[in-house]
Structures are given as C-alpha cells and as structure tokens.
C-alpha cells in the first residue's frame, strides 16, 4: 500500500488544470470559478442592457413606435431581474472568488465543490427565466418587485419565474456560506480579522446579509406560488389575506439587497484609491465599523419603499428617521475616501478613474436617496422617474463602475499582461459622459411628474426623454470598448507581480498571472499587505 506517500492533491491538479470543456464544468478552483462568474455576468449585462435599449428606444418619443405596452412591461421587469440577479450580483461574487482567497492567504475557498454548484445553477436559472419570453402570456411583466395581485396575472411564465428566483437565491446563499466559512476558517494565521483588507471585510458583511435575506425572498415567492396554485390566501384579500404583507416581506429582503449590491463596491474602491494615491486607506478601522453600521441599519428601513401604501404615522416616522440615519455611516465612508486622496500623490490609470467617478457619482445618488428618505417629499417622488434616477445613479456609476474599476485593477493579475490603457481610458470617459446624459435628466422628469414603468408619456416630458435615450444608446455602445479590452487583454506587455506602483495587499505578492494554486502554505504578511 502506498500510504507512505501522503496524497495531498487531486490527481489532475498537480499538472495544472484539465483541458477542454470538462475543465470548466467540473472545476473546483476559485480562480476558474471566479472567471466563469465574471464572464457570465458580462453576458447577462449585455442581455439586460439590450432590454434597456428596447425600453429607451420606445421612450425616445411620445407615442408608441416599437412595442406593445405588455411587452414593454416585460422588458422593464426582465431588465431589472437580469441586471440585479444576473449581472451585478454574480460579478461581485466573481471578484470575491478570484480575490478573497488570495487576499487572506488561503489556498482556495472552504467548500470548493459547493462553489462549483453555486455557479452552474445560474445558467440554468437564467435559461429558465429567458425562456419565458417565448411562452404564452409572455415574460413576467409585473416589475421585478412582483407585487400581488398583479403578479398572479402572469401567464404560463409564472412558475418559471418563481423557480428561477429560487435557484438564484440558492446560488447566492451557497456562495455566501462559502465566503463566510472561508474567511472565518482559512485566513493566514498572521492576519487578524480587523487587519483584513476592506474588500474582504465588505464581502464578509455582505455574505451575512445574503444569508439573512435571500431566504426571505424565497419565502415570499413560495407564498406567491401557493396563493396561485395551492389555494392559500397569504396575499389575496378575498381569502382574508393582505397584499401589503407581500411588500413588507419583499422589501425586508429588498432593502438589504441593495446594500448587498453596493458594499462590495465600497470594498473595491477602498482597495483602489489607496494604491493610486500612494497612501494608506484613511480610517481603515472606521471604514469597517461604518460598513457594519450600514449593514445593521439596512435591516430596519425597508418600509421607506412603502410610504404611500397606507402605513400608520408612527411607522412612517420610524422608517424616515432610520433611513436618514444611514446617510451618516455612508457619508463617513465618502469622507474617508477623500481623506485618502488628500495629500496623496495620485495618478489616473483606468481603475483609479472609475473609482473616482464612483465616489463622485455614487454620492450624487446618495443625495437623491436622502431626499427620498424625507417621507412627505417622497409622496411626490415615489414611483416617478426621480426614483429611477436615484437607483440608477447608485447602481450604474455606483456598482457597475466599481466592478469596472475592479476588473481593470485586477485584470493584469488574472491575465499576466497589461490591458490597453488607451482603450480603458476611452471606455471610462465615454461611459462617464453617457451615464450622466442618460440618468441626470431623469431627476427632472420625476420632479415634473412623470411616473415609472410607463411605455408612453405626455408631451411635456418629451425632450428629457429624448436626451436620456440618446445617452442610453451611447452608454450601451461604449461598453463594447470593454469587450475589446478583454479580447486584447493578453496582447499588452507582461505584468510584474506588483503590476502597479506599490499596491496594497497579498494578491500583489504572487506572480502575474496568478498561478493556478496560490498560498498552499500560509504566507507571512508583507509590509504593504495591511492597511
């Protein structure tokens, strides 16, 4: 018997990854899985983006030119579901998979096989969801918020919508478990929790949010399913149920969900700004506490999405005060980023450009958020384009720009080559200009009285709608430059281990491209690995 030789690796891994398609189907390697999540999310970004272009084409002028109202409603619904669950969330999970093990000096994620399932569930879930476009009754058209009773008027697509949401939730929950287990059990012993980089901290906190709220969404859609098919009346007034209860349950998920989509973005930006300012992150510990505060507060503000639903006065007051309070730790983070830049020695490579635009434009989104928190004013903003402007500012020049920043920042570590800086900068400037052209006018549209989720509008809204549509086309086309950057990613000069001038973090102590297996032995922390 060969027990004398301890077999510590699975056979094929000793010689690098397997070849061919089965490599990707069966991989348990965090780098491979990270890559799959990122490519999947990019494809979903374009799929959801094409729906946005259909929406903006129809809204470019008053009258209906291209689509029927029912299809328009399907487009808005699917655009949101795909962007939220197919693009933004998987992209951050992809970054987490690639970077967290390396940042904490771990050889891989704690549960590598579950990691593989977490990914592969997603193409199945979105295949199901996309297939509803071709079913009788069309794709779901009740908004991504799926309020009953309207959602129960969905045709054949209904059970597929529910099943798809369940699958996405399962994927997220398993991913979140993996991240927490990895961080809590597999850090290099030299790295205490408080010393972890911000990207790891924000993901640790995000993972707790995911575990708490994705099951709540699952519960809510399970109840929709039983109301539709199994004779229950959770949300049906005729049977003694309460449609508003769905909203409470949904937004108990929904509000933490938006923080799930932004906290990792905060983490990415907190990694990038110090590197390109050549200065440590200002207030590292404060940033950790602020993130934890935001996460905690995110659980007690959900009904600010429901100020017009008929809530008692005391309820409205509580939710208004709690919502306003979130501005405090969020503001602390913005001030800390500015203090990081202050008296640094900045250079403006593409990752830094996206990170800086993030700080600027996310803050604008935060301002409209603060305005929305003021309940009496929200009576005028709720369900108008003012809300659409707000959440697109925090999600597009917010989350998406942070994802772009992270992609450009870590791309040389993944590929071993410098990407085309010229193309990157062009991508950045065009994206920034067009994102503002698209979404800034929406503030005015909302204030002037244009409701959300309408395929046609009164003629006084025409001019700003036209501008927004032009912006949307420009923004969509600009993303093709990013595809070019990725396709030519390996053509640039070879990247060093450090890639950038004196970056912070353990990931910059391994070669570029990072070897298939890194940190098989727990590393010591180099001088710049900490904050």
């Amino acid at each position: 018997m060969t027990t004398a030789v301890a077999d510590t690796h699975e056979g094929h891994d000793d010689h690098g990854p397997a070849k061919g398609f089965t490599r990707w189907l069966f991989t348990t390697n965090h780098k491979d899985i990270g890559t799959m999540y990122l490519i999947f999310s990019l494809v979903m970004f374009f799929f959801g983006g094409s729906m946005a272009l259909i929406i903006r084409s129809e809204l470019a002028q008053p009258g209906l030119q291209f689509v029927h109202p029912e299809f328009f409603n399907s487009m808005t619904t699917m655009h949101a579901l795909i962007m939220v669950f197919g693009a933004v969330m998987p992209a951050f999970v992809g970054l987490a998979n690639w970077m967290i093990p390396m940042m904490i000096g771990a050889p891989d994620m704690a549960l590598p096989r579950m990691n593989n399932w977490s990914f592969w569930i997603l193409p199945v879930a979105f295949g199901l969801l996309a297939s509803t476009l071709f079913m009788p009754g069309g794709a779901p058209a009740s908004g991504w918020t799926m309020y009953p009773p309207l959602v129960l008027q969905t045709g054949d697509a209904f059970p597929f919508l529910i099943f798809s949401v369940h699958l996405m939730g399962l994927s997220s929950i398993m991913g979140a478990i993996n991240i927490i287990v990895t961080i809590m059990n597999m850090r290099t012993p030299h790295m205490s929790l408080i010393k972890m980089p911000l990207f790891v901290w924000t993901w640790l906190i995000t993972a707790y949010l995911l575990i708490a709220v994705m099951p709540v969404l699952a519960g809510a859609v399970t109840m929709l399913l039983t109301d539709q098919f199994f004779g229950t009346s959770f949300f049906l007034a005729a049977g003694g149920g309460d449609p508003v209860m769905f909203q409470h349950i949904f937004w108990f998920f929904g509000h933490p969900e938006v923080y799930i989509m932004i906290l990792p973005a905060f983490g990415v930006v907190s990694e990038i700004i110090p590197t390109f300012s050549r200065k440590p992150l200002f207030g590292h510990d404060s940033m950790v506490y602020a993130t934890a505060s935001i996460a905690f507060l995110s659980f007690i503000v959900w009904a600010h999405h429901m100020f017009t639903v008929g809530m008692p006065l005391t309820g409205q007051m509580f939710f208004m005060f709690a919502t306003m309070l979130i501005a405090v730790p969020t503001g602390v983070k913005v001030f800390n980023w500015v203090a990081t830049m202050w008296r640094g020695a900045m250079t403006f490579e593409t990752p830094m450009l996206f990170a800086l635009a993030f700080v600027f434009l996310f803050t604008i989104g935060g301002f409209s958020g603060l305005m929305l928190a003021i309940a009496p004013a929200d009576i005028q903003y709720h369900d108008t384009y003012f809300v659409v402007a707000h959440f697109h500012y925090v999600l597009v020049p917010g989350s998406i720009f942070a994802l772009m920043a992270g992609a450009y920042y870590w791309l040389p570590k993944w590929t071993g080559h410098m990407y085309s800086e010229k193309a990157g900068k062009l991508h950045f400037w065009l994206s920034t200009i067009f994102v503002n052209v698209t979404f800034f006018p929406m503030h005015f549209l909302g204030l002037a009285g244009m409701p959300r989720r309408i395929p046609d509008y009164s003629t006084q809204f025409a001019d700003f709608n036209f501008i927004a549509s032009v912006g949307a086309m420009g923004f969509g086309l600009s993303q093709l430059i990013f595809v070019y950057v990725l396709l030519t990613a390996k053509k640039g000069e070879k990247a060093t281990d450090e890639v950038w001038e004196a970056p912070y973090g353990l990931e910059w102590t391994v070669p570029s491209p990072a070897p298939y297996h890194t940190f098989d032995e727990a590393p010591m922390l180099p001088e710049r690995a900490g904050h």
Partner: protein
Amino acid sequence: MERDADTKKGVRRTALILALVAIGFYLGFILMGVIRS
C-alpha cells in the same frame, strides 16, 4: 488541498450554522405569513 483536522471541523461547523440560519429565515417568514392570515 491540505487541511488540518481543526480547520476541517471549523469549516463544517460554520457551514452548518449558516445553513441553519438561512433555513430558519425561510421557514420563519413563511410561518409569519401563516400566522398573519
């Protein structure tokens, strides 16, 4: 991947606790729906 017994135990324990928390939230909210209707 080489892992010592303590790490393996820790991994299993953390994973189990988190899975139970997730299931708890799922069933808890459905139960709340049942009680309120």
